[in-house]
């Protein structure tokens, strides 16, 4: 199966590097190359590629906004973020906007190709540098989390405070903290955002659940 792609990156050197990555893959077909957000969105609307590789920070229109537009307009295009930033909040806001993955520009060609293939199949790809550095094999699965912990995690992911979660689940705030601590421990996360990203990555929760 060949994959039609567009690439939007305002920096010529990194764009050239990424193009060289993509050229090596026989089944990738780059149909558009853009150096700013507005022309990229126009290209997406016109060409409707399978996957759009979008830099988060671009002149005129940033990658997250393009992703949101794709979702709003119901375009059959999968957004994969390409960036130099490994800030978890950036990752989360991209995912909330509708992106299906997040790859650092400094990744290897193989990593980029794998990410593209995963999202093209409908999967979710999160760069290992973004969500925890430990990646022991593709199908490494964490200690299973309980149904209650899963509920707490989902509510926390929607931005509810400990107090709000407690009142919604009819448990004490202390219990909520205990659940969260247990979740961090099982997933190997250091904070709430990381635990969400790792939960997504391990398939503990689905992206759709998180966005509801």
């Amino acid at each position, binding site marked *: 199966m060949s994959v039609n792609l567009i690439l939007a990156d305002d920096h010529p*050197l990194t764009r050239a590097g*990424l193009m060289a990555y993509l050229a090596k893959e026989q089944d990738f077909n780059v149909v558009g190359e853009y150096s700013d957000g507005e022309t990229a969105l126009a290209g997406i609307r016109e060409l409707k590629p399978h996957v759009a590789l979008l830099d988060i920070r671009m002149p005129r229109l940033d990658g997250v906004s393009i992703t949101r537009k794709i979702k709003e307009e119901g375009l059959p295009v999968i957004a994969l973020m390409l960036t*130099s930033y490994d800030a978890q909040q950036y990752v989360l806001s991209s995912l909330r906007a509708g992106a299906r993955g997040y790859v650092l520009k400094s990744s290897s060609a193989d990593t980029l190709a794998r990410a593209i293939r995963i999202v093209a199949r409908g999967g979710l790809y999160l760069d290992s540098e973004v969500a925890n550095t430990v990646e022991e094999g593709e199908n490494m699965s964490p200690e299973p989390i309980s149904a209650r912990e899963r509920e707490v995690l989902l509510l926390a992911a929607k931005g509810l405070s400990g107090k709000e979660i407690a009142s919604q689940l009819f448990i004490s705030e202390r219990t909520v903290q205990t659940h969260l601590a247990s979740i961090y421990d099982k997933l190997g996360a250091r904070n709430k955002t990381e635990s969400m990203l790792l939960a997504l990555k391990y398939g503990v929760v689905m992206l759709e659940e998180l966005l509801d």
Partner: protein
Amino acid sequence: MKKNGTLFYVTLSIFLPPIGIFMLAAAELFYSHRNIEALAELYIENFTESIAGRMEYGRIPFPGEFPSLSEDPGGGREPVSFRIPVLFALLDKEGKFVSGSERMRELVRESGGKIPTGIAGYIRAPDGEKFTAVKFPVPGKDFQAAGAIPWKDVPRAAPVRLWSVLAASMALWSSLFLIFIWRNVINPIHWLEQRVSSLKWGFEPLDDSLKHATPRVKKMHGTLVRVSQLAIRTTKTNRACMNDLVNVQEDERTKISRDIHDGPLQDVTALIQRIHLARRPDNTPEDTRLELDLAEKIAMTTVKEMRALCDFLNPPWLELGLSQALTELTERQALQYGVKIFLGVDESLNLSDSVTLAFFRVVQEAVTNSVRHGEASNIWIDIKRSDDGDVELTIQDDGHGFDITESDTADLRAEGHRGLSNMEERMTLIGGQLKVISYRGEGTCVRGLLPASGPR
């Protein structure tokens, strides 16, 4: 404690002098009263005794009518010329009134027994009137001669009676004065002192209501109110300045962060990508060589960009002095923007570091503006000392200029264009001035002037 202390000293200092004067006056009055009394006693003794003596020799007829000497000064003979009013009576052996003035009759009837014989004494009639009186037996006759001086008719004794009234009114006056001073001077000053010492200067104004106070105290209060309002304005200005400073700093940081992100960070990312590409297992040696060549080029670009960033942030060649620093700067800018820059700097200027930096930044900004906004292709820079000793900086370009009237620097600043106001502030900080002269189609001239009296 402090309040009581003040009151005590004020009261003391107000009351002490009048009290002293009163005491002295009282003593004076007391002694003069005593003297008059002694005189009166001596006088009445002599008078009565002499009348009695004259009666003995029949010089004065008796028993007969004796008019009151004071009541009828023209009617008597020798005693008539007395200026002190004297009452006289002739008494019998038992001290009963025989003849004399009407008032003497009353006195004898009511207090006859109290009239001393031989030595004059002080007696008081039942109705309160005071007299100095004496009686003498007429030698060889069964009569006594009695004389008395009524004090109410002695003119010089009046202040003695008035003294207590004077003292009371003086005390009352002093008290009123003290109350006035306390209410209008001491109390307001006290209040002011407490308000001023507890005031949060620069944050709250001094209350402007002061009901009771003398005009001068009110004036002082008004001045303090104005000072407190001035302090508030100063605080506000300071805060605005600090805000500006923080904002400028944040803006600068944002700009540097963006420059690093868009420049070196992207370059190094591209470099990593090329290394990845060079290491691919299915590369031919030629592929690898090409990737490595590219990687090297990118690395050199990175170095160049980082150098440019360093130069922008703080050029190391500023240490070389104004002339060399500007030569370096203009050569770089000429190359970067593709313009011709003609630089003329008086080598003998010998300016301080802060002035050098200010001139450097002004030139940097002016050249950037000339290229960016005026699209100039030639720029002339001249720095020299005038005949007056002032340092003059001129930057002239052949760009398309602009009408300076249509865009005030303050407006530009508000819109986020700090270029012009930055240059102005740089010059102001070193004690100089900056003027921009431009007309549409005639190029722009930026003129800086550092007076000879300014810092070097």
